[in-house]
């Protein structure tokens, strides 16, 4: 071990971070904004956490057991997510980083490189999880009135658990890359983590958490909870963390054995990781330089035809379907659609105080906004980064005779088809499950599609304005300021449309449900709202697309 070399290896990381957040040694407005935003999110999470835990806590013994069970689940979920995200990052940082050639060619021990990669990968993958888990776990401390010692204990436990997850993830990745080439390993881990995400999501939803507030179902939950009352999963480090803090929350006692395990495990795993690095790194790195598709032949079907539109479509489709990080997201979308529609199936409208028809129509109206929100989120993931994803190859488009406007139009048309299909599935099926017919059916379809098409244009426009041609992948663009601004603007637009339509739709639907007629005055107001929505949509779509085109044409590639 050479500590000065280790510090030297970490310098690029720290200097880059310093230059990013404190350019020229100053604290810029942007950094302060990020800090203020993060603090606000933490505060909101803390407040929500306190409210939820207080609610459970007030439900006698049962509530306390349940809240601690959720506490354990939160730890295990955080731990598993950290392992997966660390492994996905570790494949990139250890084996596929661009600076690898400089660093491995230098006279540096592999254990020193492991240390450097460990520190940087851990910070990258766990900072967000640590920052946003603190308010949740802090809420437990507040509600259980755990006292001053709880805070350092909680912080130490979070850091130790994160360290266990990342040391395990890194070490396991070094071994795994020996079995598959690095790019293939990345895919394998990605599939596993997506399956894990879908599993957690489906399990949580299909457990029907809404029944927790339904007194009729309490009998069932008592049986369920009694089976969960014993401490679970004694071999999972996240359960150690949860148990250590649970004992402290309940009895103000520290389990020394568990505390020792939490301290010793990451150190042991780190030493094992260093050893694995010495033993297996070079064969893995050699394999990682093999191309993923190098030995495979792809046959282009069909003859060449003169059509830029056709080829922009084919290029987008091929790039999407040949990139496992992209197409594998379709599974996640599938699960999202299933759960989304399942929510409508199990909606307890019959327990409502109002007439069922009124409630279902109101839900159908609000569902326009909800669908719009799903579309906006997916557009942020797929459409927003689609221009930046051209990367260094964007010069090919810009130096070609295809105008920027036409390029944007082709891109828009490519995404409009699947997104329209998705919006229609969400709207038509949920309307069917709610037994919606008549004017509301049409209102929801027309407005839903209008919102979808506008949000797509906004995503593309923002994507062009904030295009990051150096982003490693599409997902990386999501963290940027442009993506956040797009989401805020899209949601504000959707809320404006829904808010403006509330009164006219209510009036039309009220007389329709009462008498099966639509008074001309109300109908005119409704038409007025639809025309106003179309004008607002067109204005926003054209404004953002045009601004995007101007930005692309003015900027260097």
């Amino acid at each position, binding site marked *: 071990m050479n500590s000065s070399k280790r510090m030297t290896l970490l310098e690029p990381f720290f200097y880059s971070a310093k230059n990013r957040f404190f350019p020229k040694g100053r604290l810029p407005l942007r950094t302060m904004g990020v800090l203020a935003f993060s603090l606000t999110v933490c505060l909101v999470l803390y407040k929500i956490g306190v409210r939820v835990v207080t609610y459970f806590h007030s439900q006698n013994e049962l509530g306390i057991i349940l809240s601690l069970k959720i506490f354990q689940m939160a730890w295990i979920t955080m731990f598993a997510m950290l392992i997966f995200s660390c492994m996905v990052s570790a494949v990139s940082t250890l084996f596929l980083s661009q600076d690898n050639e400089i660093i491995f060619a230098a006279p540096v021990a592999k254990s020193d490189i492991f240390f450097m990669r460990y520190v940087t990968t851990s910070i990258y993958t766990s900072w967000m999880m640590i920052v946003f888990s603190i308010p949740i776990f802090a809420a437990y401390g507040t509600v259980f009135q755990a006292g001053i010692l709880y805070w350092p204990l909680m912080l130490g436990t979070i850091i130790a658990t994160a360290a266990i997850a990342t040391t395990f993830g890194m070490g396991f990745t070094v071994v795994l890359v020996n079995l598959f080439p690095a790019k293939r390993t990345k895919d394998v881990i990605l599939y596993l983590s997506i399956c894990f995400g879908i599993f957690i999501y489906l399990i949580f939803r299909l457990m029907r958490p809404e029944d927790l507030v339904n007194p009729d179902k309490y009998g069932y939950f008592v049986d369920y909870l009694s089976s969960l009352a014993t401490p679970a999963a004694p071999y999972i480090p996240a359960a150690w963390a949860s148990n250590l803090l649970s004992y402290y929350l309940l009895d103000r006692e520290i389990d020394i054995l568990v505390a020792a395990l939490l301290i010793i495990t990451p150190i042991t795993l780190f030493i094992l990781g260093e050893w694995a690095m010495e033993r297996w790194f070079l064969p893995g790195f050699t394999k990682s330089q093999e*191309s*993923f*598709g*190098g*030995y*495979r*032949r*792809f*046959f*282009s079907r069909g*003859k*060449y*035809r*003169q*059509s*830029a539109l*056709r*080829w922009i479509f*084919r*290029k987008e489709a*091929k*790039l999407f379907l*040949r*990139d496992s990080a992209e197409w594998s997201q379709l599974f996640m979308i599938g699960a999202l659609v299933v759960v989304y529609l399942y929510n409508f199936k199990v909606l307890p409208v019959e327990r409502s105080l109002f007439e069922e028809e009124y409630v279902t129509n109101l839900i159908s109206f609000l569902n326009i906004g909800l669908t719009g929100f799903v579309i906006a989120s997916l557009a942020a993931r797929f459409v927003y980064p689609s221009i930046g994803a*051209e*990367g*260094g*190859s964007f*010069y*090919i*488009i*810009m*130096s*070609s*005779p*295809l*105008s920027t406007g036409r390029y944007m139009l082709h891109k828009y048309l490519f995404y409009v088809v699947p997104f329209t299909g998705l919006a229609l599935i969400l709207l038509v099926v949920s309307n069917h499950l709610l037994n919606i017919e008549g004017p509301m059916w049409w209102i929801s379809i027309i407005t839903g599609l209008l919102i979808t098409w506008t949000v797509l244009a906004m995503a593309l426009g923002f994507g062009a304005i904030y295009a990051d041609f150096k982003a490693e992948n599409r997902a990386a663009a999501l963290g940027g300021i442009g993506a956040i601004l797009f989401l805020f603007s899209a949601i504000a637009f959707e809320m404006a449309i829904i808010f403006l339509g509330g009164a006219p739709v209510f009036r039309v639907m009220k007389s329709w449900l009462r008498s099966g007629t639509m008074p001309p005055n109300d109908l005119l107001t409704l038409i007025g709202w639809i025309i106003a929505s179309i004008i607002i949509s067109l204005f926003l779509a054209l404004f953002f697309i045009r601004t995007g085109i101007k930005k692309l*044409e*003015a900027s*260097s*590639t």
Partner: protein
Amino acid sequence: MNQGSNKKEKTWPEHAPAMVIKDLTKTFGSFTAVDSINLDVNRGEIFGFLGPNGAGKTTTIKMIAGLLKPDSGQISINNRSLASEPQKCKQDTGYIPDRPYLFEKLTGFEFLQFIASLYNLAPDTFNKYTAHYLNLFDLLDWQHHLIESYSHGMRQKLIISSVFMLESPLIVVDEPMVGLDPKSARIVKELFKNHAARGTSIFLSTHSLEIAEELCDRIGIILNGSLRAMGNLKDLELEARLQHSDLEEIFLELTGAYELQEIIAALRTG
């Protein structure tokens, strides 16, 4: 408009220059990267653009390719202004960058189809030239493999094939030989000469003085964003006040790099 067969569409006067640059200027903040450059490239001419690192070569080339907007000045390609008719000018220009960024998940053949579509190349022209250039650059066996598995040189050869396939009347090249093996470099040089003989104009930026000396009809030397000298080898000799010198000596003289002699002397004695 069918822009497919570019060669048949020559509507400009035969003797007019293929490209004219007037007072071209580009600044980045307070730094002037390109400062009032004036030059023209004649039909069938290979024009070499030389200069030390950071002199403004790539910035100029990017402006010609339509990738950077000039702050002032004009670029005309085949008598059309790049600012007012960008699509038509780009249709007439093939651009080969110094770094071969390509769509990694397309195969080489798909990439060529994509480029052909962007430039609206006629299917006959595509079929005629694609196989020819792929064969010439030993890429036939690799045409159906993903570009991500190509070496740097193979990518460069693929881009060069895509541009030659277009039969553009003007080819703009930034460092053409980077990453090419000797055989491919030879082929590229011959292709440049061959195309120039058939009337294609080539604007070529390079660090290699041998290539410039061998290929170029005229050379422009750019220094700190300004055109320091322009002409054929004889004109440059005169400008540098040197006789019977090779391009390296002329270049060093004109770019003020003669302090290099002292450095070399110091290195040899040290």
